[in-house]
């Protein structure tokens, strides 16, 4: 059965490690959103070269495993003289990865905005960039929020992969504690619980945001 003594004793250590997981998640989320936004706009650009660049980024990321992307950046790049260190490498890999999925989500949101919205904006003398920023994107992001939230939750769980590049976040902390306690069940159970808290909080917050927007527009 569960060793409650171990759980009570070690929970604070895991809770502290959760802070690093949270930090990695938030920074990757922010940059992942920006990468996604830029890639979505590239993919919708009238310029063929820009479309190609956006398309290539999304394709290469989505067709390769995150773990391989992470290793390429952390173990591979130093061979070319680019040593980002574990934290930067981890955040970059996660942001690039989630960014590719966000790109498709945001692009879908942009496409869903009726063409009349852009026409109305243009007929008022708004240029393409201004119309995109003020009229189309705010509506596109609202449409994309549920799917973006899904990407955010996946991102939080994927941060466990950076335990493989010596970042002592939640998963690696659990592993290390197992080394000294020989209590894998308790440790991984606590880690799972803490991940669930992070992801559920994210879902609830995004759900609230969705409701607020719906109410606001009523």
């Amino acid at each position: 059965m569960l060793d409650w003594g171990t759980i009570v004793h070690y929970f604070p250590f895991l809770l502290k490690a959760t802070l690093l997981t949270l930090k990695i998640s938030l920074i990757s989320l922010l940059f992942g959103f920006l990468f996604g936004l830029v890639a979505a706009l590239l993919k919708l650009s009238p310029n063929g070269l820009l479309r190609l660049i956006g398309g290539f980024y999304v394709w290469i990321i989505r067709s390769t495993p995150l773990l391989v992307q992470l290793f390429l950046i952390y173990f591979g790049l130093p061979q070319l003289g680019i040593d980002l260190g574990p934290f930067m490498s981890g955040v970059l890999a996660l942001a690039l990865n989630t960014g590719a999925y966000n790109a498709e989500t945001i692009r879908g949101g942009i496409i869903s905005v009726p063409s009349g919205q852009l026409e109305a904006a243009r007929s008022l003398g708004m240029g393409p960039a201004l119309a995109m920023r003020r009229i189309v994107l705010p509506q596109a992001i609202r449409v994309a929020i549920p799917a973006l939230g899904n990407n955010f939750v996946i991102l939080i769980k994927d941060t466990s992969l950076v335990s493989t590049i010596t970042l002592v976040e939640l998963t690696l902390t659990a592993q290390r504690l197992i080394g000294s306690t020989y209590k894998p069940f308790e440790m991984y159970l606590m880690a799972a619980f803490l991940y669930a808290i992070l992801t559920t909080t994210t879902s609830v917050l995004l759900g609230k945001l969705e409701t607020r927007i719906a109410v606001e527009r009523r």
Partner: protein
Amino acid sequence: MSSPDAESMQMIEIHNLKKNFGDNEVLKNIHFNVKKSEVVAIIGPSGSGKSTLLRCVNHLEEPTSGEIYVEGVLLNDKSLKGRAFQRHLNQIRTKVGMVFQQFNLFPHMTALENVMEAPVNVLKETKADAEKTARELLDKVGIAEKADSYPGTLSGGQKQRVAIARALAMNPDVMLFDEATSALDPELVGEVLRVMENLAKEGMTMLVVTHEMGFADRVADRVVFMADGYIVEEGTPAELFRNPKNERTQKFLADVAHADV
């Protein structure tokens, strides 16, 4: 740029305008002028090209060939490319208000914010100035009390009046109405037509694509009948409605009168 004789100045001049969608010729060699303060109604069966003609006037449709001048300035100026052309378009569009059949209000903004949006972000007016003007315009179209409502809560007639206020906020020299009442429930048509009629009385230059024959008869200075991408016949409302010369016009008006019964 502007004509020395302001009285005879053409607000819009269209020469040899053609528009194809693929192999489909929607506009075939259109010649057409609108004078300052003139109210022109464009009528005709669906598919006649009347909306396309209207949309060419602010370049929402790109003409296949021909020239369009707005206040003497060539709209589809082929010598301008890329950003320079966009700036040129934006400049002209600030002077050409457009009202759409489907309203196209910005759903994430209140009525007031809809009206303020372009004056603040395009004309760079201060928020205070833009809000003052916007409130006056909402009052003018009779929905001052809906200033803080989102479009989703408004009726079709209210939405269209906000859309008219939004276009007027740019202080345009000409207003284009693309079947502005066609998406409205019958009992809401009147409130929008009244706003349009008041605008006409104030001397606004208006180009109105419409199915409201009564409105065209009462308010327009000139009525243009289009069919199959041509201007078939044009004249004063009295000429066109009471004494149509062309067989197509006669048949169309007979069909419309029949539908009203």
